Structures are given as structure tokens and as C-alpha cells.
């Protein structure tokens, strides 16, 4: 007791600063102990959560494999309540409905029992996430009948309903994810909702919506371009083209409406399609685009016309050469390099001393390709009478 009293008296007599430091140290120690306990608790929780995820994952994986390899098919009528409920909520094309109906009729009792188990498990959000991630990853790895079965499982377990509901979520990340999910599981029935997101304010949502349309409806899915108001980024365009090239049927639809779009990015995308799919029949529309208000489009049109051997456009551009911008002039000379004929020689000679070095160089190369003797004569000119390009190409015959 006396010791405690002594310590209290000793503390009271201490200077204020020492008292303050002591209080701070005590507080820090308490905080550190508290935080340590808290962090340990979090770590334990995370470990348990991770272990649970692994446990559920392995359980669901086994169920999925059982479902995919359940051979015991039955011909009898099966319980289709879940499917009918789903059908009531959304409009389904008759052909798709028949196809799914047939698949469901083929389900064996084992498969039905797995569906019913997974349906119950999917009611819990965390478990639902695990199931979706397993199905999602497997869809990337397998094809054919197996991917059709995964799709049936996705629909029958009611996971489709959650995805369709999530499209209307106000948070963009959830919306984008749900569209990506519908795209992965090839759920065409969601397209009425997805179409509404084509001009969404968030670019990720827009991108997922565009990819959904192309993934599921191939070239027909591109009709969203007719109405697109928002910009179609270069990356989106590359992704769409990459998907289109995967399809067996490479029969492209009429791209003219997109070339006439008020959205410049749609026009540029249409030009890419014209070049990749060799759209020779749209030359007239392309020539009209040579007077487009956007310079980048005009330059791009010249490039496409070069690829499509647009001789008519070549003559037009040659006649209006001086009115073209420098980029267009350069693009035109690239066109000439491919489509040059001997009668173009005077025009080329006229531009051997063009103010732009690249045009000089191209003109010289083209001249060399059509009249090597004249090129030799130019090569022998005194250095002070030569253009920069001539000096560069000196003695390269």
C-alpha cells in the first residue's frame, strides 16, 4: 500500500512534460495491444473465410463434374418449375425456348438433384460468387456439349436471374460484371436489358455491352452501331474485330449505314471493317467520305481506298491534290506507290521538290519504279540542285 502511495506521490511530483510523455506511451501501448488483437482477429477471419472458400470450391467442383458426366438420362417428364418461373420473367425467342426445353427434358435425376442443391447454395451471396467463378473459369476452358451443359446449369440454378437483376444495379462495376457474365454464358435472353446500356455514361459498361452483342449475335450484333452516340474507343474496336474474326461465318452485313454515321468513331470503325473484309462494293460511299469534315477520317478513307484499289478515287485526289492537307497528301502518295501508272509521271515529277521530305522521298521512289532512266538522270544532278530526298537516296540504283 505504501509502495503504491509512494508511486502516486512520485508521479504527482513529476514535471508536466514527463507526465504527458508517460500518458502518451501508455496510450500507445494500449493502442498497439488493441490493434494487434484486432489484426489477429481479422487474420483468423480471413483464414477461415479462405478455408471455407476452398472447401466450398472443392465441393462445388465435384458437383459440377458429376453434373457434367451424369450419364443416367431419363426420357420422362421432369420438374420444370424453376425454368417456367424464369421464362415468365423474360421474353425468350421460341427457338431458344424449345432448345432449352429439350435440354432440360434430358436431365437425369442426379443432375436434377445437383441443380436443386446448387440452387439452394446460390441463395447465399458468398457461395453464389464461388459457384459463378467456377462455372465462369470452366466456360473459358471447355467447348461443345460440355459448355452447353454448363449453360443449362447456370440457367437452372437461377444464377441467370441474379445476373439479369444486376444489370439494373446503379453501380457501374456491378452492371459491367453482370453483362460480362451474361456474355460468357451466352445468355441471349438478356439482350433487351443490355441494349439499354449501349450508350451508358461509363465506358466499361458500354464496352461490355458492345462485346456482349458481338459475342452473341456475331455480325448481326453490330446493329448497335446504327444508334451509337458515345465514342467507340480504339481498344473496343480492336476487341470487337478480334471477336468477329473468331466466327466461322465471315459474311459481313451492309456497313454503309455506319460510314454515314454522325459518330466519327463509328465511321472509323466502319472503315476498318471495309478494309479487313475487302468491301469493294462500297467504293462510292468511300469516295463520298473523301469530303468528310474530319481530317482523320479523310486520311483513313484514302488508306482504305488504297487497299481496295480505288482508281477512281486516285484520279479525283490527284485533281484536288493542292487542296488536301499535308497528311492527306502524304496518304495519297502512299496510294500512288501502290496504284501508280506511267501516265502519273508528270504529276510525280512536279512533286519531287515538295516541301515535305516524306512526300519527296515517296515521289522519288515512285519515279524510280516507273522510269529508272529518269531517276538516274536525277541522281547525277549536282548536289546543290538535289532535294533532301535525292541526297538521301543517292547512288541507290
Amino acid at each position: 500500500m505504501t509502495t503504491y502511495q509512494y508511486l502516486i506521490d512520485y508521479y504527482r511530483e513529476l514535471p508536466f512534460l514527463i507526465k504527458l510523455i508517460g500518458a502518451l506511451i501508455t496510450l500507445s501501448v494500449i493502442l498497439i495491444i488493441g490493434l494487434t488483437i484486432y489484426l489477429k482477429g481479422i487474420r483468423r477471419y480471413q483464414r477461415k473465410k479462405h478455408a471455407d472458400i476452398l472447401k466450398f470450391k472443392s465441393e462445388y467442383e465435384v458437383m459440377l463434374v458429376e453434373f457434367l458426366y451424369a450419364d443416367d438420362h431419363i426420357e420422362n417428364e421432369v420438374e420444370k418449375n424453376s425454368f417456367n418461373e424464369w421464362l415468365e420473367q423474360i421474353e425468350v425467342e421460341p427457338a431458344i425456348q424449345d432448345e432449352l426445353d429439350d435440354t432440360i427434358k434430358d436431365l437425369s435425376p442426379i443432375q436434377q438433384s445437383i441443380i436443386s442443391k446448387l440452387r439452394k447454395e446460390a441463395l447465399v451471396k458468398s457461395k453464389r460468387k464461388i459457384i459463378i467463378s467456377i462455372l465462369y473459369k470452366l466456360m473459358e476452358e471447355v467447348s461443345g456439349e460440355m459448355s452447353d451443359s454448363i449453360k443449362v446449369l447456370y440457367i437452372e440454378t437461377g444464377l441467370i436471374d441474379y445476373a439479369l437483376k444486376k444489370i439494373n444495379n446503379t453501380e457501374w462495376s456491378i452492371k459491367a460484371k453482370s453483362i460480362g457474365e451474361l456474355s460468357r454464358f451466352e445468355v441471349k435472353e438478356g439482350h433487351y436489358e443490355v441494349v439499354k446500356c449501349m450508350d451508358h455514361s461509363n465506358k466499361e459498361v458500354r464496352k461490355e455491352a458492345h462485346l456482349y452483342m458481338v459475342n452473341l449475335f456475331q455480325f448481326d450484333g453490330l446493329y448497335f452501331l446504327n444508334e451509337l452516340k458515345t465514342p467507340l474507343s480504339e481498344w473496343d474496336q480492336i476487341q470487337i474485330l478480334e471477336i468477329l474474326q473468331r466466327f466461322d461465318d465471315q459474311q459481313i452485313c451492309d456497313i454503309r449505314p455506319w460510314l454515314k454515321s454522325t459518330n466519327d468513331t463509328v465511321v472509323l470503325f466502319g472503315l476498318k471493317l471495309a478494309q479487313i473484309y475487302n468491301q469493294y462494293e462500297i467504293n462510292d460511299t468511300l469516295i463520298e467520305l473523301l469530303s468528310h469534315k474530319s481530317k482523320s477520317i479523310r486520311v483513313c478513307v484514302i488508306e482504305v481506298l488504297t487497299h481496295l484499289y480505288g482508281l477512281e478515287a486516285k484520279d479525283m485526289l490527284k485533281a484536288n491534290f493542292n487542296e488536301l492537307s499535308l497528311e492527306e497528301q502524304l496518304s495519297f502518295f502512299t496510294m500512288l506507290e501502290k496504284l501508280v501508272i506511267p501516265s502519273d509521271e508528270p504529276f510525280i515529277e512536279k512533286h519531287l521538290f515538295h516541301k515535305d521530305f516524306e512526300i519527296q522521298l515517296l515521289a522519288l521512289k515512285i519515279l524510280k519504279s516507273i522510269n529508272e532512266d529518269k531517276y538516274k538522270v536525277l541522281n547525277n544532278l549536282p548536289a546543290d540542285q538535289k532535294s533532301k530526298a535525292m541526297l538521301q537516296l543517292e547512288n541507290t540504283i
Partner: protein
Amino acid sequence: MNKCKIVLAEDNSTLSLLLKFRLEREGHELLMAKDGKMAIELIENHSPDLILTDIMMPFISGLEVISHVRNKLETQVPIIVFSSAGQEEMVLKAFSLGANDFMGKPFSPNELVIRVNRLLA
């Protein structure tokens, strides 16, 4: 067909399980590896009749597995590689290292079984 030992190196556990189930039904014995390192251990310890390997795997890639089998272990055990879209260059490398066949993902497990049986025949 005799029971053959197959090493399957694949980091997607669901796909591994699916293929294990399918190939075991065909009468083969499957040894599963979730990464390249484990695959090499299994190959060295069990001398399999066939190897199925993904290209992109943690620690050691499928290409390194092929190289190890062909150059270090110097065995001619058939190897089938799995590759995803956009890995064409990797597939060419796999062939130059000594792979016998490849399957692009997504693939059909039934088709894989046919290829496996053909290589084991």
C-alpha cells in the same frame, strides 16, 4: 487398352478434375499437378506414359516442363499441350521443344480423349 499413367499439369482445378474424371473412365491413371514444378516432380518420380500440360502455369511454365522432359530427362514420352487463344507463338515454341500435339482452349474433353488414346495406341 492397358492402364496408362498420365501426368496432367493444369492450374485450373475444375478443369483438372473434369479431365481426371473423364480419362479415368477411359481406364487411365491420372497424376495431377497444379503447377509446372509439381509436374516435373511427378514426371521424375512416376515415369508417365503421356503428359498433358497447360502452357501458362505458376512457377514453371509448360514450355519449361517440355524442355525438361526432352533435354534433361531425355525421354520421348508423348506430350500434349493446352494453349489459350493468342498463344500461337507459344504453341510453335512448344512444338520446337518437342511437344507432340496441342489443343487450343476452349476444347472438348471428348476430343482430348481421342487424341490421348491415339498417342497411347
